[in-house]
């Protein structure tokens, strides 16, 4: 009886595992097909569709735009997250409660609502679509995570370690540099990488902010998919998956992926 349940349980878990990896596995596999339409299992093996990707300048420029915005979002999120996390953890200042409240409710507001809100607000402010407005829009998505990770890092730091450093002759900046910063280093690196993939992969908000001549990679793929059904998309998809895998390895190494989603509701 218990052996049978164990067996059934194992089989069920394998099925769920297959279900979870199916879309990615199929995308990667079918990117190698020699046919001019997407099929699984792939027929033959070719890298033709990868070559195709690099011959489409619109994809390359979209990639450049996405990467640039994502890099900026990662860097800014890390800095703003560090400063904001320190402020919330260490200081009392007017607006602290409000900031915390907004930080925790930002996760709960649908991304699409943020997208349309930003569209209308930018229009009202007379801000035309640009990589800059895209970056601003993405910061709203990424900064809450960065702050939260920094807060988690700071919570794990024994305040006495900072006192110890000061007592051993470290001036305030040296205490920050040698003790505080190393404690949140993992959070910063993990947060930055997460910000990068969040920005790089975002479609929902980007759809509202972009114009026809300013398309991020996800927007470009989304539009391409509407009328083209050739394996180029699977090749791009595979490349993006590789990108994500690298990011996940880094995040897992420094903070643990589960921590990003562990404590509350994220939006995708």
């Amino acid at each position, binding site marked *: 009886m218990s052996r049978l349940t164990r067996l059934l349980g194992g089989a069920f878990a394998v099925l769920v595992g297959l279900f979870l990896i199916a879309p990615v596995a199929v995308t990667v596999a079918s990117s190698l097909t020699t046919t001019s339409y997407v099929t699984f299992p792939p027929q033959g093996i070719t890298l033709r569709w990868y070559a195709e990707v690099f011959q489409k300048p619109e994809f390359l420029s979209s990639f450049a735009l996405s990467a640039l915005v994502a890099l900026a979002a990662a860097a800014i999120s890390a800095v703003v997250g560090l400063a904001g996390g320190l402020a919330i953890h260490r200081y009392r200042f007017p607006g602290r409660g409000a900031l915390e409240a907004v930080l925790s409710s930002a996760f709960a507001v649908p991304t699409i609502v943020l997208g349309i809100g930003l569209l209308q607000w930018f229009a009202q402010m007379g801000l035309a679509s640009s990589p800059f407005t895209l970056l601003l829009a993405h910061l709203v998505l990424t900064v809450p995570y960065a702050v939260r990770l920094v807060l988690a890092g700071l919570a794990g730091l*024994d305040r*006495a*370690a900072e*006192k*110890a*450093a*000061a*007592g*051993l*002759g*470290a*001036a*305030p900046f*040296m*205490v920050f540099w*040698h*003790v505080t910063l*190393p*404690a949140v*280093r993992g959070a910063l690196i993990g947060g930055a990488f997460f910000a990068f993939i969040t920005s790089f992969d975002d479609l929902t908000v980007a759809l509202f902010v972009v114009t026809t001549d300013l398309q991020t990679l996800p927007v470009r793929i989304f539009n391409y998919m509407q009328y083209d059904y050739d394996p180029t998309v699977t090749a791009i998809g595979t490349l993006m998956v590789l990108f994500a895998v690298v990011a996940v390895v880094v995040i897992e190494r420094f903070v643990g992926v589960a921590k990003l989603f562990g404590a509350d509701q994220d939006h995708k």
Partner: protein
Amino acid sequence: MTSTTTEAPAETAVRRGRLRLDGVRKVLGGKEVVSAVDLETEPGEFLTLLGPSGCGKTTTLNMVAGHLTADGGLIEVDGRDITAVPPHRRSMGMVFQSYALFPHMSIADNVAFGLRMRKVAASRRSKRVAEVLEMVGLDGMSERHPRQLSGGQQQRAALARALVIEPDLLLLDEPFSNLDAQLRVRLRDEVSALQRRIGTTTILVTHDQEEALAVSDRIAVMADGVIHQLGRPREIYLRPATDFVAQFIGEVNALDGVAAGPVAGGHACTVAGATVAATPAGDPPADGAAVRLYVRPEVVRIGTVERIGTVERAGSVEQPGTAGQTGTGDGDGLRGTVRDTRFLGSRIRCVVATAAGTVTAALPFDARVPGVGEEVTCSWRPSDASLAAR
């Protein structure tokens, strides 16, 4: 810590490290947690701030270290006013309850930190680190990270880190409380021996009275932000000055009486009709003043009451080496009836009902045990008990 140190900084260190607190105050969250604390250490002294949690002892230590700023009063080290000096410009080696080792640095880097901040050259730095690690018995552990060490080893590393800078003062904030009972005793004895060897003035904060008694040259008992009593361990234990000190450090017999003038070796007073004596904790009380006696169970001697004809004679029989000495100056001690006796292993607990209330005695294990219901006298040497105004 088992090996002896090769280089003893004692010669230089013993001359410095005179800490003086003068009327130091601290208000936290609208409450005065430290009220006008005065304290002065001798160079090389091991002084303990003892008290329950919330008594202000850690706050006081943090003001000495500079992590908190005093709201009033003066803090001096070797005559230099450091009240407003930030912690990194003081020279205090502090060991925390949590050890507070830097988790991302090896033990060697942890210990070297203070030297790096002092811009000590790398070669000299590593030599000093090796010396100090050997001194605390951590040689061979230098490349480990804190989480790879046991609690006791972390504690030693924290001690090494604090000592390597040859601080004016060594500050220990409940350093043994995270260790299990056996290790706690061993480490505290090691730290005490080490302190004696290197002679750095040391302030220990603890709530553990046994620990305080075991390691200190002097103890300051604190409660509610004030020092209740400052004295050598023996004095603190045998002659408590206040109810709080008496109750906080072990069991005590508190007896109310009236002062009756000085006698040889103490001060007499009348307790429930009997005359007994003790040493005044402060200024001798005026005759007729209401006083309270504090007598530890360990110093109480039980004497038999012999009846020779109609004359009663009290005599001490059990306390080895004190036979024939009635100790109470002129009285015969308190008379009472044995209510209960219990063998507790190291001691025999004997409860005597007297006219002044219940007196508990802790007799040596080999003492003669009086029978329940037996008429006995309770007496003590005046120098082993204290009396204070009530």
